[in-house]
């Protein structure tokens, strides 16, 4: 399901709390909506499964920061 890039989803997004979210990504979040980051992704664990945005939009994948937006 496509995730809108809107203020509510941005507020609920937990990407900045994620161990994989790094300094390069500091102004980026909601990868399930905006797509993959242009920063280097060093996998340190993924919180997408715990995210309220993922629950609301019935997402079942991980590492949107690397794999791109939800389809």
């Amino acid at each position, binding site marked *: 399901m496509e995730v809108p890039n809107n203020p509510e989803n941005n507020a609920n997004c937990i990407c900045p*709390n994620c*161990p994989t979210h790094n300094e390069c990504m500091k102004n980026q979040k909601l990868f399930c909506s905006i797509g993959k980051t242009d920063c280097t992704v060093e*996998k340190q*664990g*993924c*919180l*997408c499964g*715990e995210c309220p945005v993922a*629950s609301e939009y019935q997402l079942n994948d991980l590492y949107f920061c690397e794999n791109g937006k939800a389809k």
Partner: protein
Amino acid sequence: MKIAEDTIKDWWVFPGFELEKVATGLELPVNIAFVPGPGQNAQDPFLYVSQLYGQVKVITRDFTVHTYASDLLNFKPDYKFPGSGESGLIGIVVEPESGDLFLSMIYEDNGETKAKIIRTSSEDGLRMKSQVTVIDNIPSVHAAHQIQALSIGFDEKLYVNLGDGMIDSKVAQDDNDLRGKILRMNFDGSVPSDNPNPESLIYAKGFRNPFGATWRKSDQALYVSDNGPASNDRIAKVEPGKNYGWPESLRQNSLFWWNFTQAPTAIAFMQDSQFPEDYYDELFISLFGTPNAKGKVIKGKKIVKIKINEDNSGIVSYDEFVKYTGVGPNSPCGLAFGKDGLYFTDLFSGSLYKIKLKKEGN
């Protein structure tokens, strides 16, 4: 730091039962460990609570809260929920003979996050006097999937739930890595000679984030809860030498699973006389859900109970037992049976509740 308000009316309870708030003012209370055979005096220790950010509280028989230990972490927690704020001090169990506590936690060592277990001693059970390290230097992470529940088996060995560390899930299948395993050890951390591999602490492998553990009297076995990535949380009966599948599968050798994750935390069997006989051997499970999610949510914020079938191949019933219905981030985390009811912690409000049979006429 109190993150959520709490009112008892915000909790729905299964018909025939009622809720009693027995303690407040705890800070991020995680797990509960009852004192086996507590003394009869009002000031005797009754139960202990691990607090996520490095304290242990002891609650006496008169339900006064005392600080047993503090400053057990060597790093500053960051309160990020979900995320790195979910880590710290988790597991707690009372060694029945001495009254000592075993505690599991993460720590920082030259910039690396590691996991350890300590054993603490006290003269009166009210204040820690000394501590020794049982095992340490286990690679870990500042997030969930860390070292989790501790339990003591009927064989008087210490069992340890160890998450996969989140970064490389393949370690759960690596027999030379302790992560993603259930460990079995003597109380001094040494390997029991009757372990599946007499040279290894590993008792079973293939777990992801096994938060809860409890022992069942009727089959003398250990049961754990395990958390899936976005699907397949599960309950499993842990048997020596078995492989529980992660990262390939979170259903392998499982008793029961939720296709859509609910974040099961602590678990406990009703196996004494706290509830009527109909509830005997039912497993009560805290479903924590998404940390810090407020109000009505799809995941967690409840305690459910399941009845396991006779041949242990599945379950025959599933009920919601307690449910948070308010607007806050409240959710049950720790859970354990005391002699007079089922106790649980509400992580974000810092309250400890008891579920008991409703008195007639109420």
